[in-house]
């Protein structure tokens, strides 16, 4: 496939040029990952995958400015071949062309999640949702169920 190689190289160079034009020449994304009580990450990275409420999306430097809510899911930080995974409960992500600010209400490394506790929680919340007397209780229990199911997904889907 030698005739494809020059083409793909040009294509990639063009994409790099375009992205560095919008990002002001920066090659790496400034990641600011905050919670109300800690700062899990504040450094330059290659890419971060954000669990947006409307769907997960990846952020590279030069990304269109975006504001998104977070759903319970995994923030994946790609930095020079290493991948860090943090589970977040909810929050907001503010993306600009040079930086991504992730403000999560709660964040924990996926390796810290305990699958036994999560499975117990899932069965408890499933029961509570079924037994709920009013909309408010049902919605509250449903949130608990969703978060725990997302945590289980994060553990079982983790690399």
């Amino acid at each position: 496939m030698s005739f494809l190689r020059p083409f793909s190289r040009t294509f990639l160079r063009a994409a790099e040029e375009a992205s560095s034009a919008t990002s002001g020449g920066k090659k790496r994304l400034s990641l600011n990952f905050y919670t109300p009580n800690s700062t899990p990450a504040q450094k330059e990275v290659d890419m971060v995958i954000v669990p947006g409420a409307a769907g997960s999306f990846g952020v590279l430097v030069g990304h269109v400015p975006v504001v998104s809510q977070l759903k319970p899911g995994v923030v994946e930080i790609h930095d020079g071949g290493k991948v860090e995974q943090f589970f977040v409960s909810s929050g907001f992500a503010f993306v600009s062309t040079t930086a991504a600010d992730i403000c999560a209400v709660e964040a924990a490394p996926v390796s810290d999640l305990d699958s036994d506790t999560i499975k117990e929680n899932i069965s408890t919340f499933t029961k509570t949702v079924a037994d709920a007397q009013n909309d408010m209780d049902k919605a509250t229990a449903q949130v608990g169920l969703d978060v725990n199911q997302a945590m289980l997904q994060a553990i079982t889907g983790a690399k």
Partner: protein
Amino acid sequence: MLVSALKTGVQAAKNAAPVAASSVGQVRGKATQRETKTRIEACHSVYKITKAMQSIANAKLNPAIARMQESRPMAASVRAFIDTACSEVQVPELEAGASCLVIPITSDKGLCGALNTKILFKTMNTIQDLKEKKMKIKVITVGEKGHKNFQSMNPKMLVHTASHFGKTDINFLQASRVAEFVTQTPFDQATILYNKYINRVSFTQMAHTIPALTFFSEQVSKFGEKFEFEGDEEQILKDLAEFQFAVQLYGALLENGASEQSSRLAAMDNASKNAASMALELTQLFNRTRQMQITAEMIEISTGAECCK
């Protein structure tokens, strides 16, 4: 328990009879000596209690400062986003009759110096200013001390109180609950008043004004100029408004918490010093009086002996 023991000690020191003037020939009787002894013991117990409260406040101060500092990056990030998006937006002037929510943050426990007095004073000034602009004012106090103050002075304005957060340090979950509770009362403007921590010996009163939660939703087009929304704009802005309110309230609660510990530290330090110096004065008085009594008795005995010669 510490506070009630402290009150008993102070009461004992006060109830003792005043010091009788000891001039030559007039001596304090054994009864008043006993009372002086009681006063000295009371001073010692007050000293122990205030010293204990001082070390507790000292131990709690550094973690409180750490929590406050750790919370600042996220608050700054949220505020920076809002400032960037709304940089050209002017918050509209309030018309007369707008409903203003005033939220003073106070402590639950006392013996913390001038902390609560200062913030409640600032609250009264804020309310006065708002009254002059003919606003409708409602007050939601955070903390028992603010609640007691408003109940006795201005019960009609007091709508709700959030207090007794428990023995654990306040966390974002609790702050969110308070924010949710507060925002059930609709408002055109909210003012959070709290003591901002400066350093171990000083703090200052701050007032943060927050526009109505609907303000964000009304700025959809402004936000849309600079940012794209992943998802429904109205929903995101509505949630963002509530989120930033909780974040601001959390920041204010942590600052006030750190200020409370530093204020209590200084107040209890002063109280211990005063108790110690009072105990010293009374002990010296007691000893002087005891020595004068002995001298008087010796004079009596030697005079009697002279007479019988």
